[in-house]
């Protein structure tokens, strides 16, 4: 399985994401600069955390116009797994690949630390290694993680089990405590917490490993062999 980690100017969790994939899966990971247009050779694409383009205007607002996002959109349409972590989640909402948006935390502080998440849907390509209802520990680090969407969108997300993770308790003022959501075809997931920072014992949690394990298992089951 071949993974890409997209690197925007201002990404700062790109190496962590690549390191987590290598540790957990042993797979090959390419760091892909944001000017790259074609991502068709990859089986999974990660948009990492950070502050792409300084988060000027809005988080992810400039990054979404990068050439690489055309490639991400095409790959997503073809069923490639796309995982947006933190700033990557913000970029995916700005790009319209996921509904809603991320606003400044309701308490106005940058929130940084271990939080508890509830796995709401364990049938997604990103969550199959978890149990539904399981409480996991994964760190967050963000100033703008307050998920917002209109009520009809939220109802739609809930009805089709597209809410992947919720916070246990108040973290940033997100509607319905949403921490992560999937698109309608379940191959694009965005979440504010950092699973790549919870993959070995000394990180104080290994609960993030199973995001990458789930993705690898999904790929193996799907049996996709790229022509390239």
């Amino acid at each position: 399985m071949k993974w890409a980690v997209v690197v925007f100017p201002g990404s700062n969790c790109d190496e962590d994401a690549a390191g987590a994939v290598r540790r957990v899966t042993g797979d090959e990971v390419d760091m892909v600069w944001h000017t790259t247009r074609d991502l068709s050779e990859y089986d999974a694409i990660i948009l990492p955390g950070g502050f792409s383009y300084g988060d000027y205007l809005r988080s992810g607002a400039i990054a979404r116009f990068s050439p690489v996002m055309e490639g991400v959109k095409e790959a997503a349409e073809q069923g490639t797994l796309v995982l947006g972590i933190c700033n990557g989640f913000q970029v995916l909402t700005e790009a319209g690949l996921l509904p809603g948006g991320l606003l400044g935390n309701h308490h106005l502080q940058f929130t940084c630390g271990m939080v508890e998440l509830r796995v709401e849907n364990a049938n997604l390509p990103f969550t199959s290694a978890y149990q539904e209802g399981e409480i996991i520990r994964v760190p967050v680090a963000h100033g703008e993680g307050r998920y917002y969407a209109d009520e009809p969108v939220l109802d739609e997300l809930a009805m089709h089990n597209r809410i992947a993770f919720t916070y246990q308790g108040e973290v940033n003022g997100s509607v319905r405590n949403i921490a992560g959501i999937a698109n309608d075809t379940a191959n694009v997931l965005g979440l504010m917490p950092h699973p790549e920072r919870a993959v070995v014992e000394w990180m104080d949690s290994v609960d993030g490993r199973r995001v990458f394990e789930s993705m690898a298992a999904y790929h193996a089951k799907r049996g996709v062999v790229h022509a390239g």
Partner: protein
Amino acid sequence: MKFYEVEVKVWLKKSVFDPQGNAVEHALTGLGYEGVDKVRIGKYMQLLVEATDEAAAHDKVKSICDKVLHNPVMETYSYTLAEAAAEVSV
């Protein structure tokens, strides 16, 4: 071609909680200012836009606001547009 001075304001939609506005409102109340309500904090942007005429300038600015300067999921915007004085240098 003509030049137009454009001022764009972007706010959070009414349905979206604005923690900055809320914090400032509390501060104002704490400082003794009475009768101050619904404080909302937004963004202000200036643009100098080149276009053949005013209608074309409006089209351009609307497109810029819709596609880039505001996110309709949570924000709304308004703008003003006026032909720039002749001495404007680019």
